[in-house]
């Protein structure tokens, strides 16, 4: 039971962290290496709400808005000239991540920041005392995933985004403002990353480098998902399970590199990873 909960909640955390990266990669075919920096920005939104004495849950919408706004700025000034140079976009966003990290350091200092618990305590679930917050994270992953799927399937923006994914020239011909779709997608991706930063605060230290550690894992998951949301969910479950099982039965050190190594092997065998498309 404990093991199952560990697998599910680990997969949920991975999913929440990776979904912002997936949104951007799926539509824009750009790998956003500033993803870790957006996560950090989100976590610092939680720090700011604490300083202002607000309810800690206020950090969630705040992070989404701040992340989206910063995402808009970087799409306009950094990503837009690089759509034709995807490898350069990796580098430029990595550089952007360095800049954001240093700005946070200059503004807040290097120290680990104190953030309040969103939910504390444990819940007894079928005879196991389990961290209440990890269950909240599981619920959050489901909510974010469903909301994201609904946006893609049910809204005008989602329709336009799918059109851009399939055939951008045609989409433009149909009168879709593709530049606006790209801008909004990038904002949503950055906003989701920042949101995940807030959700990570009860699990992780909050410091200027906190996001970098999550970047590689999220990147590998998105590569394996190949831009598809169901494939991402599947990848998070499969690799989350692999990480937990290897950590539990072999060694947590091997477990911590399991995602990266297994994802690389999966891609070697099938370049499209877990997606059918």
């Amino acid at each position, binding site marked *: 039971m*404990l*093991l199952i909960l*560990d697998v599910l*909640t*680990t997969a949920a*955390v991975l999913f929440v962290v990776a979904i912002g990266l997936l949104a951007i990669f799926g539509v824009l075919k750009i790998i956003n290496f500033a993803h870790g920096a957006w996560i950090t920005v989100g976590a610092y939104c939680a720090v700011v709400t604490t300083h202002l004495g607000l309810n800690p849950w206020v950090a969630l919408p705040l992070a989404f808005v701040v992340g989206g706004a910063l995402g808009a700025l970087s799409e306009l000034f950094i990503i837009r000239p690089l759509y034709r140079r995807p490898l350069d976009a990796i580098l430029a966003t990595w550089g952007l991540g360095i800049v954001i990290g240093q700005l946070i350091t200059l503004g807040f200092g*290097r*120290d*680990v*920041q*104190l953030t309040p*618990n969103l939910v*504390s*305590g*444990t819940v007894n679930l079928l005879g196991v*005392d*389990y*961290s*209440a*917050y*990890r269950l909240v994270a599981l619920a959050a992953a489901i909510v974010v995933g469903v909301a994201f799927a609904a946006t893609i399937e049910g809204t005008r923006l989602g329709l336009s985004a799918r059109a851009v994914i399939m055939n951008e020239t045609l989409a433009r011909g149909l009168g879709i403002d593709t530049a606006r779709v790209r801008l909004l997608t990038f904002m949503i991706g950055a906003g989701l990353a920042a949101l995940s930063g807030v959700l990570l605060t*009860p*699990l*992780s*230290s*909050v*410091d200027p*480098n*906190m996001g*970098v*550690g*999550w970047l590689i894992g999220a990147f590998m998951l998105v590569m394996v998902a190949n831009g598809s949301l169901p494939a991402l969910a599947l990848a998070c479950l499969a690799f989350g399970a692999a*990480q*937990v099982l290897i*950590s*539990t039965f072999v*060694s*947590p*050190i091997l*477990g*911590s*590199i399991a995602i990266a190594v297994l994802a690389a092997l999966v891609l070697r065998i099938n370049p499209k990873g877990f997606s059918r498309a």
Partner: protein
Amino acid sequence: MPIRHVVGIAAALALSTALARADDAPIVIGVPVGLSGANSVVAPSVVQSSELAVEEINAAGGVLGRKLRLEIADDASGAAGAQKAFDALIYSKKVDVIISMETSAARNAGLPAVTKGRKPFIYTSFYEGRSCNKNMFVNAWVPEQQVPPVVDAFTRDKGAKSFFLIGSDYAFGRGMLAFTRAYIEKTGGRVVGEEYLPMDGSDWTSTISKLKESKADALITSTAGGAPNVTLIKQLRGAGVSLPFANLAVDEGTAKSMGAGAEGMYLSASYVTGIDSPENKKFLAAMKSKFGGDLRTPNDLSVPQYEAIYLYKAAVEKAGGTDASKVLEALPTVSFTGPRSLIGMSKQHHAPLTMYLGEVQGDGSVKVVSTFKDVDPGEQCPKLN
């Protein structure tokens, strides 16, 4: 504050006489320290205590009539940065001595430069032990000094028989826990689990599940300072772990930044702010008046730095100058009574120390639970004297 005026005038007088004699150029102390990277949280407190020591010594007339001057360099908490920092200090800034708190990787990276440049080097960070170099002296603790108080206290006071060990996968984490395991087994206890995560690892889920299933009586951790410490403690608290818990690698400042989360945690140190001695009270008051609102909590890394500067002063005075070989000869024979009580690096380039077992309180402060006098560092470098 008339006293400060007097000190200021004295300093000015001393300065003018120093300027009058050209051969009395200041003695330069190089401090390579991790202003960026993993150590950057604690580094500012190390710089502050160095500044206080130098200010106090200069105000009291300097060393053999010469002033002290600090040269701070960032080592980026790593090997590559340390090489640059040591080279810059030894060859470009022409320092007389290196006194610093650094990561083990940075210390090792600096040692060749210290050896080639023939400079004395006082290392002021606790570490996993057994780093030996004829130019290097250590005035901070090693596992032999720090671990026994924790294990003894848990065995004696909490009746713990089985222990679970968690560490970060690096030299310090592995070294500390290897010693801890040996000590537990020697004293009749049992180790029911030993788990490591990479230094940049942030997901302790399965480790915590194993801990809960092991039904251990007590938990001892040695995770890397900063993020891994905080991450582990947050996740432990989230999972409702409440057994006796000691952290071998946490300093008071970090404990404070974790707020209520760290309450009840034990730590073993050669320095805690709560030491009840006149030297410590004077030191804390001096720090407070010098740095005011910018004061970083003095800790087990910054106080040895402060004392090391005084130890160097004593060695130079005994040697009659800054000549490296004479200073190195004098260093094991001198001592200084500082905030941590009497310190001398008399045992194989290491220092016997008084150790304190502390418990973190709800407000993040540390209460001294028990004191262990003059704990011996053991056989660290049998080949050195």
